[in-house]
């Protein structure tokens, strides 16, 4: 699976494409064949709807005629009916059983590069039949052992900024509405359920010069991770299931660390339900821009403003309000016309 060695690349890519085909045609994850072609849509709405349920997710996609903004909205609305039962134990990206893990920061990384299933190298041609590796390829997920971030080597050498943590408890955006100055945890939560397209747009502004010019992906991984929950009676930790997730660490530029004046690299983190690399990368870039605005070469821009990001990336909110303009505004518009006429008369006098 490694694409480290140049000569192995072609084979790795071919295997990667083949795995991707199997994944979206039902030979990979799905117990239910009907679910497989909907995988990325399902993953996207579970993340944006902030509810991980494949069963409800599929129902939401069907109920919305595959309008994914609307489908995410169904999930979010359903959330409101669910009583919170408690908190699972903290999930770390190291615990992910990765089926794909790459770094564009260095060729050689501990535990190796693993291309896994990806559409990155598939030619986007609709009418031409493409052939994929006929060699039997099996997708292996790592099992049991933790896989460190490819950036941990630099971290050990104390070359990476540590974000300041001033929060005793993470903020909870589902229980109160965050106020400025926005805690990092509230921004991360908003982004974890943000709309992929909106986040992509904002992240893109930083790439085009309104922020950090060219971030590098330090570690990107997709895979399954166990959700561990303390048993309500025994208190023992019990695995209640596995969820698909995506985690990304991005490296930005370096600057003098105010703590000791040493030069250090700034990093950003992205994490979301399901396989959604675009969203996780966008999130890590936004985190980078928000946490270290002054590190950005391109200076500050919209993406470095917490105010701008926190209020404008939620698809369910922006979609709802945009559509509300279809409602009657007879009274307000009539009142507008009244003052318009009065003002006109005053002007003519």
């Amino acid at each position, binding site marked *: 699976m490694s694409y480290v060695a140049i000569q192995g690349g072609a084979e790795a890519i071919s295997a990667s494409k083949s795995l991707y085909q199997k994944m979206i045609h039902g030979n990979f994850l799905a117990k239910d064949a009907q679910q497989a072609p909907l995988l990325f849509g399902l993953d996207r709405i579970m993340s944006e709807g902030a509810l991980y349920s494949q069963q409800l997710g599929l129902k939401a996609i069907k109920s919305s005629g595959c309008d994914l903004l609307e489908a995410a909205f169904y999930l979010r609305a359903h*959330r409101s009916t669910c009583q919170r039962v408690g908190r699972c134990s903290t999930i770390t990206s190291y615990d992910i059983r990765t089926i794909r893990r790459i770094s564009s920061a260095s060729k050689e990384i501990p535990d190796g590069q693993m291309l896994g299933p990806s559409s990155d190298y598939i030619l986007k041609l609709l009418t031409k039949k493409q052939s994929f590796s006929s060699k039997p390829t099996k997708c292996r997920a790592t099992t049991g052992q933790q896989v460190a971030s490819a950036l941990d080597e630099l971290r050990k050498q104390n070359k990476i900024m540590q974000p300041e943590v001033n929060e005793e408890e993470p903020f909870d955006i589902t229980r109160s509405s965050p*106020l400025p100055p926005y805690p990092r945890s509230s921004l991360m939560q908003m982004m974890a359920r943000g709309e992929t397209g909106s986040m992509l747009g904002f992240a893109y502004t930083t790439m085009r010069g309104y922020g950090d010019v060219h971030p590098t992906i330090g570690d990107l991984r997709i895979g399954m991770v166990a959700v561990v929950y303390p048993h309500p009676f025994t208190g023992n930790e019990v695995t209640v299931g596995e969820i698909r997730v995506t985690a990304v660490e991005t490296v930005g530029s370096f600057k003098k660390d105010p703590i000791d004046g040493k030069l250090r690299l700034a990093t950003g983190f992205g994490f979301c339900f399901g396989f959604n690399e675009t969203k996780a990368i966008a999130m890590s870039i936004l985190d980078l821009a928000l946490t270290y605005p002054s590190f950005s070469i391109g200076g500050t821009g919209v993406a470095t403003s917490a105010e701008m990001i926190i209020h404008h990336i939620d698809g369910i909110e922006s979609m709802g309000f945009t559509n509300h303009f279809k*409602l009657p*505004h007879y009274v307000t518009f009539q009142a507008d016309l009244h003052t318009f006429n009065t003002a006109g008369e005053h002007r003519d006098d």
Partner: protein
Amino acid sequence: MTETTFGFFDEDAKKEIRRALLKAISLPGYIVPFASREMPIARGWGTGGLQVTLSIIKEDDVLKVIDQGCDGSVNAVNIRDFIVSTTEVDTTSLTAKATVIQTRHRIPEQPLTENQILVFQVPVAEVLTTVEPDTARQKNMHAHREYSRLWVLLYEDTAQYGDSRISNRYPVEINDHYVMDPSPIPRYDIPRLNNNPALLLFGAGREKRIYAIPPYTKVTPLTFVDRDFQVETFPGISCKRCGTSDVFFDEIQGVDGTYYYCSDTANCDSMLNRKQNAA
């Protein structure tokens, strides 16, 4: 997939919204942030008002829902049906019979009483948005009652147009303290907020804000000392259907001229009834 509970939400959510409401009532005109839940109805379509209504409604309440003054408009019907489907409360179009009234853009014509709660759907909770979009600075301005930029807007409009150009969402000062957005009600309804016997609650779902005007609170529109607050007037006009005058009218452009109908359709029904009974 669980059955929905009374009032759609789980009890914790309702409790939390009620806490925000209590705070809002204690600080008239102050904007209280709350963790606005996603509703099965889209943001911008009344989810703030809906959450307030669902968190306060009881089995013996009688519900009235209006949109632009009308009980029969699609959005009002949709919201009323949804509330009924999760609470099975009785509904009415008669203002006097209702205990909880959810509204968009109007206050019913018939005066409200101490036993009633009027819940407003609010699109933009923050009155300072037009002069200061930044949330942190807005909060600071409220804390210091620094409203001079709203007054400058009023000055500019008065100088150039003879009066403020704000036709709805007219800024009001609550109890001589905070300045507040009264939701997009027409100017006609602004004086009717003052000293109102009913509890007035405001919910903004997308903006995640709640605020309130307790019963019998002083509400004054921002107006220069040497100017009178102007409201929409309809001199010499009466409703084409019920014949009432001195209410807020919808203007309907017909092929042969302009017709006027009561904006408050329930009030129109009552007036028509009274007229027919008298005849």
